[in-house]
């Protein structure tokens, strides 16, 4: 089937199998490997992307669901030359150990701050509950996000 959607604000049109999952289309067909695969069952959040601005687990989303919609991946938020403020903050706080979960955390954290620019500690924990870090570096991740909640540096994206 033909899939027409936008990825990181670029219109994309490509032929896919009707039962391909979004994560595989992004990684295998579009080469956007910043979106990670870990559990493939919606438990870990490593594959988090946005559809129309809402974070979802791309391992549980048929790519066909993205028809006509707008998908944002980690590549759409920042890059090494120009990191997103959340990425900068995670680096500054040492909130990344093996780094595998980091893109997913960034996607969820930016969506959380877009929706609520000044979340409380509890709201940050609740907002990030769908992302697992198996290095268990949660404290620094939460501190990094919390530092943005208290500052005015965060710019909506």
């Amino acid at each position, binding site marked *: 089937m033909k899939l027409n959607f936008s990825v990181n604000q670029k219109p994309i049109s490509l032929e896919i199998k009707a039962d391909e999952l979004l994560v595989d289309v992004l990684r295998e067909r579009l080469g956007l490997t910043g979106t990670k695969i870990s559990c493939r069952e919606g438990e870990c959040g490593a594959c988090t992307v946005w559809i129309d601005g809402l974070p979802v687990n791309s391992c549980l*989303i048929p790519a066909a669901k993205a028809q006509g919609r707008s998908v944002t991946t980690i590549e759409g938020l920042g890059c090494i030359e120009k990191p997103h403020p959340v990425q900068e903050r995670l680096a500054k706080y040492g909130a990344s150990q093996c780094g595998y979960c980091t893109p997913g955390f960034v996607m969820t954290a930016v969506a959380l701050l877009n929706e609520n620019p000044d979340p409380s500690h509890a709201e940050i924990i609740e907002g990030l509950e769908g992302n697992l870090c198996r290095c268990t570096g949660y404290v620094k991740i939460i501190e990094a996000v919390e530092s943005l909640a208290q500052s005015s540096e965060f710019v909506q994206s």
Partner: protein
Amino acid sequence: MWNQYFTPNSLDEALHLTHQYQERACLLAGGTDLILDFSSQRYSPVEAVVDISCLPELRKIDLQGESITIGSAVTLSQIIGSELLNNNVPILVAAAKQIGGPQIRNVATIGGNVVNASPAADMIPALLVLDSKVSIGSLSGKARQIPLEAFLLGNRKVDLSFGEIVTEICFTLPDSMTQYYFHKVQPRRAMSIAILNLAILMIVQDQKIAQVKIAMGAVAPTAVRLKSVESELTNIHIQTAANPELYTEISQDIVPISDFRASREYRLRVARNLLREAIIGMVNSIKTG
């Protein structure tokens, strides 16, 4: 998993598709359970998937008179964000918050949680204490509405035929004096499947429990109403609610199993203790409040 993916634009179009394909098609809303069932091969491949998640008819939360109607494709995030539900039936918001994380709640639907009919589904006990009804549409027969309790036939079995679509879940708005309780026993605070979950609706009048409805999940093939305990507790003075004997009848209502999440004995003990603690907490908050 499937060869064709349909995204109908109206309920009528969706009904035509599911009528046409019958057992060769599968309805999909959020897909957070269904995709796993296909990928783990619990479900055999089908010819077509009909995605009903964007049908405007199924996405509404409405209050009409004394009745609240929730479209089957309303997401758990929509429930959590609904002012109407937060103000009137906070138990549904509490239950929705216990499911998955934000990424799951942004797509998972109330209809999906009900139709998937996991014994551990978190929305179902909350909907059972509200005496919810399930509305079902089809092209061949008349639209029908049945109590949720009757809709749940067993472990992941519901009273739904090929060609039918669950369109709405509705219930009568409870009295404004109603108190609610929802608790999920789980190994981790998020992203867990319930070892057991408990929903309670209670009205206290003149120091007596005038009405109490209790539902528990993950203790039987479907979530169940604890009718034996409900009748023990109804009309008692709130001072006597702590009496442990009131809760022994719970073994009439539940038949927990041992699995990798917990043993039968653990579930029985937690069920009895948690229920008693919850009821005591609810009547105490009335006494002091």
